[in-house]
């Protein structure tokens, strides 16, 4: 580790900010543990995917400019989400194809931004996780992280360091859980089928925990698990890696 601390801005993501702040704090703890100086710029809201995937290019570009401005002065930008980070990294640069001012700024941000687990593995190198959790878990590969950013081994190698944690892979772990942002409320019945299939595979894996790197998928999956009365608990991978699973799992009440 170099003496100079990496200057990292956390892109919290809207879902973590609103529904599961614990994931944000877990991310901060992990980054600090990896030797980074972490800032959380106040002027952040959302990456713009709701507009982008609904076809509103203008609003998306407005929000992208806001994000690019807000995160201009940091060495790295890290988010606990493959989906939001994929938006910043893969899609922002495409929003300004002929824009000589914003095009390069978007490309510059894309260069500096990382999904949390890939940042910890690829930029921080082998960090010492030093935590334990006696449980068995299965890992859901969220689509954007997997296919846009190549996130597959990074969370698994980190989870491999968690003492007592058994990872058992489920069938079709790379198949979409049916969240898809607004898709899940626009086509709830199709989404229900997809998340039911996912939940069946999670339960069949025999794990007592499902982990993932995207809160959207985890809200969807845990919501379906609870609707079916399953005892399988859902946590964001950052919560497990930071040893912050003392609060109830996603969608669970105190003492459940």
């Amino acid at each position, binding site marked *: 580790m170099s003496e100079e601390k990496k200057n990292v801005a956390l892109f919290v993501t809207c879902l973590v900010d609103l529904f*599961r702040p614990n994931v944000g704090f877990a991310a901060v703890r992990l980054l600090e543990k990896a030797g980074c100086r972490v800032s*959380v710029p106040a002027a952040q*809201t959302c990456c713009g995917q709701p507009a982008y995937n609904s076809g509103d290019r203008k609003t998306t570009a*407005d929000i992208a400019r806001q994000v690019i401005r807000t995160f201009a002065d940091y060495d790295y930008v890290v988010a606990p989400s493959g989906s939001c980070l994929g938006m910043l990294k893969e899609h922002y640069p495409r929003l300004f194809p002929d824009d000589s001012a914003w095009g390069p700024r978007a490309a510059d941000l894309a260069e500096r931004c990382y999904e949390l687990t890939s940042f910890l593995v690829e930029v921080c190198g082998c960090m010492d996780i030093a935590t334990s959790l006696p449980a068995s878990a299965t890992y859901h590969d969220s689509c954007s992280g997997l296919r846009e950013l190549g996130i597959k081994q990074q969370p698994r190698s980190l989870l491999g360091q968690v003492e007592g944690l058994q990872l058992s892979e489920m069938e079709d772990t790379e198949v979409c859980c049916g969240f898809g942002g607004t898709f899940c409320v626009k*086509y709830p019945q199709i989404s229900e089928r997809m998340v039911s299939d996912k939940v069946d595979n999670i339960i069949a894996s025999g794990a007592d925990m499902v982990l993932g790197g995207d809160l959207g998928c985890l*809200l969807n999956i845990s919501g379906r698990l609870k609707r079916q009365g399953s005892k399988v608990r859902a946590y964001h991978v950052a919560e497990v890696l930071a040893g912050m699973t003392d609060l109830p799992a996603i969608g669970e009440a105190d003492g459940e």
Partner: protein
Amino acid sequence: MALTAREFKHQAEVALHDVNLQRALAKAKGGFVAKRRAAVAALPEFEEIRTAARAIKNHTLANLDAYLEQFERKVEESGGKVHWARTPEEACETIQGLIGSEPRQVLKGKSMVSEEIDLNHALEQHGHTMVETDLGEYIIQLAHERPSHIIAPAVHKTREQITDLFHTEHPKYGLTQPVTEVGAIVDEARQVLRTKFLNSEFGITGANFLIAETGSTVIVTNEGNGDLSQILPRVHIVTASIEKVVPTLDDMSTLLRLLGRSATGQEITSYTTLSTGPRRADDRDGPEEFHVVLLDNGRSTMLGNEFRDMLRCIRCGACLNHCPVYGAIGGHAYGWVYPGPMGSVLTPLMIGLENAADLPHACTLNGRCQEVCPMSIPLPDMLRALRFKEHERRITSARSRGALRAWAYLARRPRLYQAVTGLAMRVLRQLARGRGRFRSLPLAAGWTGSRDLPAPQGKTFQAQWRRR
């Protein structure tokens, strides 16, 4: 072809509750995926071939006019004729003109272009009798249905349904015993079709490729019906779309190595048949006349816009097989000829975005289709491009546009956003009353109809961070 893409949502819901369909889909899905995976794994240079194939198609599309003209010249040199059709109507009229006004029995090999132009319907209106010879196509013709998959047209049917169908339709041929085993089902269809093969003057097939350097049309099949449909009749008519042309036989070979593996997991299909002109003087068989009807139907427009990459499609069906939405609802729900990811791009472009407004949205943009596409077509980007168009043309619902506007207003004002969302999360937390989740919530029925909504933790991250 009945166009019901506007009813997508309703049709999808019906499909989800169709027990037979769900059984058939569950059976097909795993098979296609596992077989493709094994075939790709067994060919270490798959990615290299994929890159080469993409380059072949891109080059061809950049010079499409030249290769099509070369193809036409070569067809004519070998004694055949090329007919150009801008629209489905022109294509059907051309074929009707070739067959003539006297009612005929017409053999058909599998052709998705013939579905696209609704050829059977057009010819039947002129009194002709259409005989589908591909087993899947034959089954759905008997059932008065249409293909639900571009390479496995009857994939939505269970074996039991086919047994019942044959038992209802075949006694008129003296076949009165129900057939339940796959082998027996195939044999019975073969018996029925055999006499029709021998008594038809016209045969229509599609084409997987058109070879510019030789003027050949190519079909890949597993049943041999395509060969009989084009060799036995006096007149062979090929229906193909313009993007099917490739420059050389070598180029075809490259694409063939991807097609079978991506489609069915086969290294190569049982038959790969090239047709070059009509029967020559020393040929022992073959048609006396050879016609190729080349369809545009919007493709030359796509060549010049952001959807050009879609023209690389070789119709392998891998995107359907790997699409979790297709896997849940099957092909009919999409409401036109082409289902699944490739169909959700093509259908709006061919029949109008306003007639298929749901299709680009009925996708989670999970990207599995692009991952398996042998031609690396960026299907999610294309679906998103269609969403941009819908938004620009205000085809999306007023309600979703309103919600988007309200959200965008907040998202562009971080302070206001944090004040409003902070309050909203605290209220939600109160409403949850310690239960950790909602079973139902006003205005959130889309979510809570099928899953609980996890309750927020309480204070937002931003609010807590400020106080740290």
